[in-house]
């Protein structure tokens, strides 16, 4: 078992719901923000390597990506910075297929490994399209996290669940990052069967904004993934670190109150 899977299953075994926090690399204050979320209760940090055409992202993260790129952010430099910081919790990189493909799916593994990255989330690399990359990753300690959505057909669902590594990323809404989620009965319907089938922990993400949303989704799963709200604070607030500290602490409390794993 790869190290990220070991870590997330150990959280699950100790009845701890996970918080995964997303931060776009390359915008002002991003490194401080990563340290801050780790100190205040995040279990895994998803670091976004910016891409010019992020189709899965809403206006906030898209804007952050544009700003990072206009700041001159480069993939290898950002990975070198991640290496230098030696963050205290597991780091997963979230980016789009072309960012990795342009460097070469094999060639990029060395800088990813040196940076201590233990997971990859690539929202436009579907399960089928990831086949050869999964083969390349087989001999490494980098987990390729698979995404599953409410629209995923039964036919494809089992393959995705069986082949995910690190955790299973359950896309909570039919939408893109940062959209307001409406917690209707649909979520209570589609998440439990996925969780029942998955041997890995199931984390819900996309569209989760408030501690209350997080609590509801964490009660159905093994954890939540939060991004837009943090990036928004980093982009807009005068004292973002204070705001992020407060937000993560509230989130930690809400998620911890969501009930134990069944």
């Amino acid at each position, binding site marked *: 078992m790869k190290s990220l899977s070991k870590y997330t299953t150990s959280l699950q075994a100790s009845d701890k719901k996970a918080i995964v926090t997303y931060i776009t690399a390359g915008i002002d204050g991003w490194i401080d923000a990563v340290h801050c979320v780790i100190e205040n209760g995040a279990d895994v940090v998803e670091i976004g390597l910016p891409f010019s*055409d992020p189709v899965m992202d809403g206006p906030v993260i898209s804007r952050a990506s544009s700003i990072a790129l206009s700041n001159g952010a480069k993939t290898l430099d950002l990975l070198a910075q991640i290496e230098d910081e030696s963050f205290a919790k597991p780091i997963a990189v979230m980016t789009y297929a072309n960012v990795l*493909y342009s*460097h070469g799916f094999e060639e990029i593994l060395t800088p990813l490994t040196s940076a201590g990255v233990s997971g990859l989330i690539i929202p436009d690399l579907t399960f089928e399209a990831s086949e050869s990359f999964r083969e390349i990753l087989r001999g490494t300690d980098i987990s390729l996290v698979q995404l599953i959505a409410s*629209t995923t057909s039964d036919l494809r669902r089992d393959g995705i669940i069986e082949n995910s590594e690190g955790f299973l990323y359950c896309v909570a809404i*039919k939408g893109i990052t940062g959209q307001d989620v409406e917690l209707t009965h649909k979520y209570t319907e589609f998440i439990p069967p996925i969780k029942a089938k998955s041997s890995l922990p199931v984390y819900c993400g996309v569209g989760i904004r408030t501690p209350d949303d997080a609590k509801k989704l964490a009660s159905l799963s093994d954890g939540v993934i939060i991004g837009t709200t943090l990036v928004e604070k980093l982009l807009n607030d005068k004292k973002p670190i204070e705001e992020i500290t407060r937000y993560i602490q509230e989130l930690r409390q809400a998620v911890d109150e969501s009930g134990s794993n069944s």
Partner: protein
Amino acid sequence: MIGQMMVSSEDFSIDIAGVHLDPPGPKPQNGYFGEFGGRYVPETLVSALDQISQTFDRCWNDITFRKEFASLLGNYAGRPSPLTHCKNMSSFSGFDVYLKREDLNHTGSHKINNVLGQALLAREMGKTHLIAETGAGQHGVATATAAALLGMDCTVYMGAVDVARQELNVFRMELLGAKVVPVTSGSSTLKDAVNDAMRAWVSRVDDSHYCLGSVMGPHPFPYMVREFQRVIGDEAREQFREINNSDPDYVLACIGGGSNAIGAFSGFLDTGAKLIGVEAGGQGLETSKHGAAISKGAIGILHGMKTDVLQDSDGQIQEAHSISAGLDYPGVGPEHAQLNETGRATYVSATDDEALYGFAAASQLEGIIPALESAHAIGWLLRNGKDVIKPGSSVIVTMSGRGDKDANTIHAEHKETVISYVQEVLKERSSKKS
């Protein structure tokens, strides 16, 4: 009214309302044209793409669907479009030039062929809302038209820059009942309009069909759009044979995403005709301001497909540049990337200036005002064709659209250049006469 009808149940070819549909063409293996194509999309969209794929496979081999599609092409869109033998341009250029007149279709371009097919398909799938991206506005107008015809809602995403330079088309879409959303992210052009259309589709996938306007995007779009557009080439081949009892030496078309070109090329793949695609050369391939994804790009992943893309060494997509909004796109349909790799088609480029020359020349020589996109193909043929094509060769050029939409911009920004080219053509024409 449906005209005389002939249907072959053997090969699904159809003759109806004056329109002939050839049997369905070859399907890409697992969604790939060689190493190009595929499906690189958010997981939420995969089931919608599967649904489109299955519905298209069923309908495209269903006589009832094909009859309805062909009937709309004939009775509504005005097909078949003529193949015009251009005597003046021929004696002017030294080539035997024919124009395939997609400019004469309803809504003014080849876009209507694809849109009618996809709108019928959307209805089959029970979708009530069409989403589209548009550059020049031609595809947006065509989609809004089909939505009006079939009683569907329509939202068109259009780069804010393009909204400004294609004001009249924005009004046409609104007149047809569509909502036009200006896109301000990125470079505010076609690439960004595709991003926002895909985001909108992810968010409204249950009731919406993304009516993609070119042979690009995730499988099955490059294949399906080619099939809806292949009527251009199949018609042109038969029309040329009727006149000349042979096949043309060359087929020439402009390339943005590449739908008019692939439509034309697919009718000639099995013939001896040489195929040439003309990309947007912008301010020159030696500058960074062009849209020549095949000539100057590298293989990458954009908008759901693996194909030739303009990008930097870090995989960031670069902004394209072209005088014509419809060619202002940093990628190209994956089948073109394959045709280039196998050498079956050749890809060249025409600069903004050469396109203006083509615009003036087609207008003056033949009384046909071309869309700026199509003017790239004409401009390349007249200015640089001799480098590649032997004098006397027969050439079919796809006139992908008409130039009315561009008249305002050209009048405002390039009037003097274009008028000087008209004078130049007039002078050369009269010197050849004497």
